[in-house]
């Protein structure tokens, strides 16, 4: 169900010398309730601006944005406040109010009318879950960078909004905080009433978290699709170069106690990985790591060996991208033109696909 619909959105920026820069041009997209929508793109592509406009921190120059069917850019001041209270916006660089840690985290609840006795326990709980116990009364601006980031995470997540807007947050987080953030996000993803819209540089984060990805370039939407499609079949050269190629599958992982190998069941295929993570996972394999053979290779060390049929061939000059259909899944394999000629790979050719367990990454 469409939560936010963006139609023909443009944002122009007027420079002091009179020139106009189009930060966003003619953006149209639709974000569904409960999904994790990720926006990726190079620096300056307009990711932050788009997010800010969705958060009503900036107004578009043109275009309309509807939230559950209502045009948010036309909202009155009151309606804007009500809309903003449905969301939270985490900036790239952490910024806290000049107040105690407790006060900062409590703020979102306070402005929504919560009284001290009501929010005190919630805040205390949140302080513990981000590991800042004992620092309630310290001024948030006197904290270290990492601690401040945790305050920011806490103060935004305590208000349990309907929409989470996260602007390249992981770019500035240290690893410990990334873990904290991830655990919060994963909890939220389970709730189908909550929607997450995040922008990122990190391809793996996008693959890991996104239900759908929008690729933004120079203010324009390049492609919107599931991670698998974008990473496997990027629309054009730019996207291909920017996102890189990946094979992405969702499946269920379980470690076999005997062999100690992690088996991931992906529809009707089982892939072996050396990564130990279990449960619902996303799995990623580089196209370059996959080896093609005309005949079933014998006595090889790689544990993943499958038979499939060539479904598509893309000539990229020196490299050839071959899409192999294995049972109900498609694998992208990257080989040299020479190899293609040598093996005589054509559409419909039966081939054997082979890759190591260590090349199967769980995200």
């Amino acid at each position, binding site marked *: 169900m469409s939560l936010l619909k963006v139609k023909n959105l443009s944002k122009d920026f007027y420079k002091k010398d009179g020139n106009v820069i189009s930060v966003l041009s003619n953006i149209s997209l639709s974000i569904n309730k409960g999904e994790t929508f990720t926006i990726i793109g190079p620096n300056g592509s307009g990711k932050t601006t788009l997010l800010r406009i969705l958060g009503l921190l900036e107004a578009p120059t043109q275009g309309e944005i509807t939230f559950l069917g209502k045009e948010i850019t036309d909202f009155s001041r009151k309606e804007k406040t009500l809309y903003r209270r449905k969301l939270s916006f985490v900036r790239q660089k952490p910024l806290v109010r000049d107040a105690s840690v*407790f006060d900062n985290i409590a703020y979102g609840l306070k402005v929504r009318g919560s*009284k*001290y006795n009501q929010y005190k326990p919630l805040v205390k709980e949140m302080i513990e879950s981000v590991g800042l116990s004992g620092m309630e*009364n310290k001024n948030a601006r006197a904290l270290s960078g990492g601690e401040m980031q945790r305050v920011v995470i806490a103060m935004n997540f305590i208000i349990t909004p309907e929409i989470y807007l996260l602007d390249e947050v992981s770019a500035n987080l240290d690893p410990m905080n990334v873990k904290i953030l991830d655990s919060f996000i994963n909890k939220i993803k389970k709730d189908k009433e909550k929607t997450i819209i995040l922008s990122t540089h990190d391809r793996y984060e996008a693959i890991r978290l996104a239900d759908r990805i929008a690729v933004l370039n120079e203010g324009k939407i390049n492609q919107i699709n599931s991670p698998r499609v974008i990473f496997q079949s990027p629309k054009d050269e730019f996207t291909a170069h920017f996102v890189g190629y990946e094979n992405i599958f969702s499946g269920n992982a379980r470690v076999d106690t005997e062999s100690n190998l992690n088996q991931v069941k992906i529809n009707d295929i089982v892939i072996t990985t050396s990564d130990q993570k279990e449960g619902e996972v996303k799995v990623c394999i580089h196209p370059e790591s996959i080896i093609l053979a005309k005949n079933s290779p014998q006595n090889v060390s790689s544990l993943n060996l499958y038979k499939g049929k060539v479904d598509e061939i893309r000539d990229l000059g020196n490299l050839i991208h071959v899409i192999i259909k294995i049972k109900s899944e498609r694998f992208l394999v990257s080989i040299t033109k020479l190899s293609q000629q040598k093996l005589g790979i054509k559409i419909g050719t039966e081939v054997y696909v082979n890759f190591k367990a260590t090349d199967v990454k769980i995200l």
Partner: protein
Amino acid sequence: MSERRALKTIISEHKAAFLIIFILVLGGFFGTFFILDLLSARNPNRIILATTTSTYDSGLLDYLLPEFTQKTGIEVSILSVGTGQALVYGENGDVDVILVHSRSREDAFVNDIDGQTPFGINRACVMYNDFIIVGDENNPAELLQNDNITTVMTKLKFSIDAGNTTFYSRGDGSGTYSKEISLWSFIGVTPDIEWFGEPDKYTETGQGMAATLQMTYQDANNQGYTLIDRGTWLTFNDTYTILQILAESVVGEDNLLNPYGVIPVNLELHPQVKYNSVLRFVGFLTSDYGQNLINTYTKNGETLFHAAFGICNSTHNCPTTEKEISFWTIYQQEFT
């Protein structure tokens, strides 16, 4: 620690209440004094007197008025301004009574001919002091002790024209300035035209008496002269020892005398003035008691003012003396 938090939270949750309390307290402060001021404006036991700076600075009023307040319970607020200002305040009715020393302008103030309503009524002569001419002890104009006024002014003009004297004038609308101009007129000179654009001959300071005296003293060529009231002179003469009195009132002449008139503001024009209290005030000033106080006021051991009620005809031409005596006798009764 948690108690402090609680207090801060209480304040922040009841911001509106605290703000209102603050406004009430502040408003209370201002309001109280405001109301007091409004009441005082209507209170007949408080009158406002406008007088000139030289009168005030002589200290006479601070000596005289507490006696009046003690006897009658009436407070007198004194505004010390220039003669012109005092007269205008009187015209506007912003004050209840004025005390100035500029007879011609006083006469205009009480003028009831030409069909206009006078600004003041029942003027009374109170006292006089005198003006003196002081100058550098070198006395380049060669003024002599017994020179009459015409001689004095003539000698001054001669010396100024020769470049040996610089005369420092108030150059403002003050009583002193009016007197100075009238002295020049005895020899047919209008000084600001005579020495137009020649400040090294005739300097119009535009300042008060003390500042003008200072400039006379500081004259680069030690050739400064000025006209000054005795009161101000007595305040500063110790400081400016190179200046001397070079001309003062000669027996039989009254043109260096400086008579003071007190004028109640006209009730008809300004009904809000506290006329009855002013009547008592003037009664005090003109009573034997008050007049005696004036005569006994000294500064640096010298008397400054001389009582003049009823006898001003002996010191200078005063056409209203009879009228004044008959009007004010009643109001002097309470002060015998």
